[in-house]
């Protein structure tokens, strides 16, 4: 097995351990279909996100009411890829945005992004997100879908240390390691996914 393949295998194994969904894809086009497909299958935000069936205080409910249609947020995508996504969304009746995430703090259905690196040892995505919209897309989305090119997977955090430093030195910078979905065990140590961040993390491993 090539080292690229073995890193990709370790990465997949470790990411699945923390309940990330990992899918291999052959092209960016395939990624778009995957995104549209997931968005279609996913329950509407009002129901799923935050347990809209739960009664809440008035203020919290009002915020939730602000969101009506299914939204895909994809800031930070290359222009041509975003155009293709936008066209597909239109056909399916989804709203597609690449900016103004602050108007959607109740949540978006899908945040669609690229990762800069993957860390095989822990199944971690490294996402450099100095842009606020990109950052928010990875935080307020219910499903975070992230493309990780296989060639960008490294053994451990030490092996991307230099790349991290280069980015950090270009201040200001905001960078994230993302491993699995948002989680808590604060009540009786029972694991629950989707506290403040995404309920699901989908990683699309791109053959490159």
């Amino acid at each position, binding site marked *: 097995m090539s080292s690229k393949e073995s890193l990709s295998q370790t990465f997949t194994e470790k990411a699945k*351990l*923390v309940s990330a969904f990992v899918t291999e894809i052959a092209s960016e086009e395939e990624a778009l279909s995957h995104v549209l497909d997931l968005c279609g299958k996913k329950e509407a935000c009002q129901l799923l*996100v*935050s*347990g*809209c069936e*739960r*009664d*809440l*205080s008035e203020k*919290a*409910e*009002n*915020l*939730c009411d602000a969101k009506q249609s299914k939204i895909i947020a994809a800031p930070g995508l290359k222009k041509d890829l975003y155009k293709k996504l936008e066209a597909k969304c239109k056909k399916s009746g989804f709203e597609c945005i690449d900016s103004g995430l*602050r108007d959607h*703090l*109740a*949540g978006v259905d899908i945040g669609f992004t690229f990762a800069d690196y993957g860390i095989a*040892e*822990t*199944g*971690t995505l490294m996402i450099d997100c*100095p*842009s*606020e919209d990109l*950052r*928010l897309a990875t*935080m*307020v989305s219910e499903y975070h879908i992230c493309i990780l090119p296989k060639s960008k997977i490294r053994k451990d*955090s*030490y092996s991307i*240390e230099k790349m*991290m*430093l280069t980015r*950090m030195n270009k*201040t*200001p*910078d*905001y*960078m*994230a*390691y*993302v*491993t*699995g979905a*948002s*989680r*808590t*065990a*604060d*009540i*009786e*140590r*029972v694991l*629950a996914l*989707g*506290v*403040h*961040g995404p309920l699901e993390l989908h990683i699309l491993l791109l053959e490159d």
Partner: protein
Amino acid sequence: MQKAKNLKEYREELHESLDNDFLRTTLDNFAVAYRAGRANAFKDIDVRALIREIADSKDDATARFDELYKQFKANAEASGAHVHFAKDADEANAIIAGIAKASDCKKIVKSKSMTAEETLLNHALEDEGLEVVETDLGEWIIQLRHEGPSHMVMPAIHLSRYQVGDLFSEVTGKKQDAEIEKLVKVARRELRQKYVEADMGITGANFAVAETGGIGLVTNEGNARLVTTLPRVHVALMGMDKIIPSLHDALRILKVLPRNATGQAITSYVTWITGANECATGTDGKKEIHYVIMDNGRSEMSKDPLFSQVNRCVRCGACANVCPVYRLVGGHKMGHIYIGAIGLILTYFFHGKDKARNLIQNCINCEACKDVCAGGIDLPRLIKEIHARIQDEEGHPLPSLLLSKVLKNRKLFHTLLRTAKWAQKPVESEGFIRHLPMILGKEHGFKALPAIAEKPFRDRWPDIRPNIANPKHRVALFSGCVQDFVYPEQMEAAVRVFEANDVSMEYPMEQSCCGLPVQMMGEMKASRDVAVQNLRAFETGDYDYVITLCASCAAHLKHNYPKLMKDSPSLTLKAQQFADKVIDYSSFVHDVLKVKAEDFKKTDIKATYHAPCHLCRGLDVHDAPRELIETGGMEYVECDEEEVCCGFGGTFSMKFPELSSELLRKKLDNVEATGAEVLLTDCPGCIMQLRGGLKTKGSSIQVRHVAEVLADNKK
């Protein structure tokens, strides 16, 4: 939180926890699950080497603080952040309140920060009329309940889903079911609007990286990311100990922190913030960032040659996770604000000796914390040192003064023990005392106390001393008080096996108590005096080994004697040479004598084992005694939680009988579940505790020293 004025009140508070069934079950389950989770998380990693590296790098950072702080500040300011230094908690709170005022902030969202708990920041900000909302689920829950955290990583571990359900019903004004999945979603939605409204976000920091001027945050829920993104002002409050030289140092700590905290390979999120990043609602589209670096007792620790290692702490909470006392009483009783072993120490430095006085005595010295600490901090030793300091400053309690006076005079001590033998005569039966001595109350009734032996080992020695014609090893025996005066037959058993293996033995008569009991009571001076006597007693002979059958004596002689002599260079060398020769019984027989199965009769006896704390952790001996059981002709049956403390802890069991008896109960339940007829161990203190407990229970299980069964089965 510590409110008790004296030890009696503190013990009353401990009883509240002991009576809390939910807490007890939760912490029991956690202790067992954590042990397995941590082992699994570290399974392909050389954890000891990693911990050593962290310790070295943190020690280096502590020593170079001034230089690193300067570098951090310069880099942070160059990237548009503001850096403040606060000498204490009040100053830190005032700085943050001042920032809120200057930037016209009214509503604040916070992510979890132990440093903010330390300064009671929320109260200070609320007093200024600001609204502060915790967003970490556990922190939010305890904030709503007006409580402090009961664990550094899982602050609401003491609460049940029902309590949280009731609380959330109150908060939302609507009835909420006690289903965890749903309660989490309620928090998600209720708190989302708080982020939207807030104009300031407050976080702690796990790392402040000098080479970049940025910080790192290690979280699971994703709240810290929202807290540092949505509000236009971000304040990060951190202790000076968070400043480290490089990103590499942070990545190294990150390899241990989550694994040690919760058994996770890494947390869901690690957020790296460097400089005033983009923020749509900020001035010029940029965020206003403030780093508040706080001293509050840390520089005092840094300057102390012994306590500077406390700065290595990465706040993983592992020392509480493995602490048998924490497991019984929970974090509200096993800490003030910081919890667990490190909490006992930090309370003294951050919150003063009034809060630490009772707390500091609640360490059974089992070394489980030291064994897992991410920074390799010698926690039990530091706890004892603080105990001693407080006593030196405030005066020593009478019992501890008396004991140290007596121990310093070996002849007096031994005469008292001999006198006690006569005093106990009327109440003695089958090696136990029938009635508890008057000075002990009812709560000590959970175990029968042993009687003092007819004739101590030192008086038997001249008659039994074997003559070895061609010795293979020359050793000295260190009996310790218990085997000398209570269980001399254990020493005799060892002598028989040694004799059969051509070991020539000496028993230096001037030896006394090893000194651990007085050290446990915070009597460092007496501990040192006794140690010097023992060093003198053993210095004349030319021995290959100094053998003791008591794991606690062995660990104390080996590890603490050189430390106790550190102020006297000539004695340090002597103590080190002595310590190098010290070996426990099982290791000597197994590793040095290498006894063989054919030397022993085969029996069909099933034996289980209790691993004394000071053998398995103190000396890192694990396989030797268990293999000896099989070699010695018995069948070894593994016991659940074999390496967990039996609750003796020397003087601890006298001071906290209610805790000692609970630990013993658990231990004996596990022992009985094995179906073994014999329980073996390597420490007379443990034997005293275990035998006493089984006798009171009316159990038929025999408790014996490994040395005794080997002598019995010897062909």
